[in-house]
């Protein structure tokens, strides 16, 4: 029997009769992915300008990127801010999710919604708000300011991932651990945390990505020697279009894809 005559599901609908579905799905996936992938050939162009498809090939824009002090400084800033955001947002979001899960209080739901508002509010509002607030506090163009703003954006994500992990967790395990002689803190670290660790790792990777990919807040509150990679890319696109951007984009796509694959792998481990 050819594969298209085999049933695709319990209802005996064959792959053949579903072919239209597969075609549409493939088209949609291509439409989603092509804009991202198009930068990859562009980054290997030899031309002065962004062009597609490139007429001649070279690695010069990668050399340009890795040789540029300015780009390297921005990359280091982005990695620093991303790492710090991850280190702050992951424990914060985990603690918030845990507290709301344990309390069972009526207000917990409302509090959850309040805490995830940074995800719902247009980021530009957060950017403008942060810019004016930081103006008063002297936090513009600083790593601290960037980390704080990115933490506000990443914490809701962490909360959502961890809350989902708790949905299948029996909190009685902690009660048992405590009755057996563990303090509350110990019960959390020895019993609860090992069981949600893959979700915590997933959340950490996502919060790093949230910061690393973030443009809007960075445009407003970062600058000078503390400008992020994304901010530099944005300025570069505005001021002079050159294929270095394509090279950097390719690298970022690569990093993001790897991290997302890692999160997928970790969340599949978390049953």
């Amino acid at each position: 029997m050819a594969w298209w005559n085999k049933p695709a599901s319990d209802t005996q609908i064959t792959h053949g009769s579903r072919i239209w579905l597969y075609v549409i799905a493939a088209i949609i996936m291509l439409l989603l992915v092509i804009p991202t992938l198009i930068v990859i050939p562009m980054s290997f162009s030899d031309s002065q300008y962004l062009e597609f498809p490139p007429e001649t090939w070279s690695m010069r824009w990668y050399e340009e990127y890795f040789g540029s002090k300015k780009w390297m400084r921005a990359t280091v800033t982005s990695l620093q801010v991303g790492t710090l955001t991850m280190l702050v947002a992951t424990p914060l979001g985990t603690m918030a999710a845990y507290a709301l899960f344990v309390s069972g209080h009526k207000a917990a739901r409302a509090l959850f919604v309040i805490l995830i508002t940074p995800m719902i509010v247009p980021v530009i509002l957060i950017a403008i708000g942060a810019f004016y607030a930081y103006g008063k506090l002297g936090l513009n163009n600083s790593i601290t300011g960037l980390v704080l703003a990115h933490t506000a954006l990443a914490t809701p994500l962490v909360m959502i991932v961890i809350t989902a992990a708790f949905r299948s967790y029996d909190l009685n395990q902690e009660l048992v651990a405590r009755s057996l002689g563990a303090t509350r803190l110990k019960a959390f670290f020895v019993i609860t945390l090992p069981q949600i660790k893959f979700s915590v790792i997933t959340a950490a990777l996502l919060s790093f990505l949230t910061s690393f990919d973030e443009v809007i807040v960075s445009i407003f509150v970062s600058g000078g020697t503390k400008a992020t990679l994304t901010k530099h890319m944005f300025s570069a696109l505005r001021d002079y279009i050159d294929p270095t951007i394509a090279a950097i984009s390719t690298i970022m796509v690569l990093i993001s894809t790897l991290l997302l694959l890692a999160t997928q792998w970790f969340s599949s481990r978390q049953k």
Partner: protein
Amino acid sequence: MPTDSALPIYINGLTKKYGELFALDAVDLNIRSGEFLTLLGPSGSGKTTLLMAIAGFNRPDAGSIQFGDTEMILTPPHKRDVGMVFQSYALFPHMTVAQNIAFPLKLRKVTEAERHQRVEEALETVQLGGLGHRHIDQLSGGQRQRVALARAFVFKPRILLMDEPLSALDKKLRERMQIELKQLHRQLGVTTVYVTHDQREALTMSDRIAVISDGKLAQVDTPQTIYNHPANGFVADFIGESTILPLNNDSSGQLSFNGQHVQSQPADATHRDWSLVIRPERLYLSEMSDAPGRHNATDTPLALDGIVKENVFQGETAFVLVTIDGGHEVSVRFGTGSMSQAGHLQPGDVVTVYLNRSDAIVIPTGDH
């Protein structure tokens, strides 16, 4: 094992409110050292709240909980030294069976050699010898239950608390575990507080039963006393099957039903209104071949005339529903052996239902 370390629990005036609702309403309860006491009540009666208060997982609004001479009301759970078994077992799935059982020993800094030995002993006690290396998801429901038990007693706690530990098991396994738990309790000698809503389980296992309703104790007594002498309508209705019929009280304090004298009202009575509690298995019919033998020369039984409404066969026993004069309905339960003629009764047959006066349970009417 640790009979010497069993502790009595003294509970005094324990009160816990959730909003306006009393989950526990000034509960006084003394649990004897080494006793198996069951908290029995319908859901929402406060039995789990009381257990959680003993374990230290909720802070009562008022009252006292003493383990022996020590006041525990402010002691956090991890310092109370009580073993606890939950309905969901709450085994740690990221640890093996042996690691689960060793957990409380590790926290108590027991050396590895002794830990190993005590885990093996505990596994033997719950008949899981040699399964220490297993993972939790490789165990059956009954085995998980045993691991949870072993983990709760391996550190020789002075008090063992169990919250409906058998309710997730199927009926046959549940009944076997009831007997095993009872034997284990005898072997360990530890003061045990057991929560259940299943009256048969409570009757099977307990030294004493505390029947709880709306945050108050309705009666605390041995299973026999609770069953044979319920203190009030709630207990009579909740434990066992029963029919509750109003009694007539004449001016001289003689209680009667349908004109037949039952007994005198208790001398110290402050009530006027009394009810008759009838257990179906204590009634008998003239059709039952052994009925005449049950007549006692000094105790002429109450005789209630009625009409058979239904005859229900249930395997080991059967019952007939009889509508007696006055419109009340009583059920008569009997064994299904070949001696019994009651199995042939048809709806509409006229019968007489007998109750020996010594089997008549009289309770004050009201608070039901």
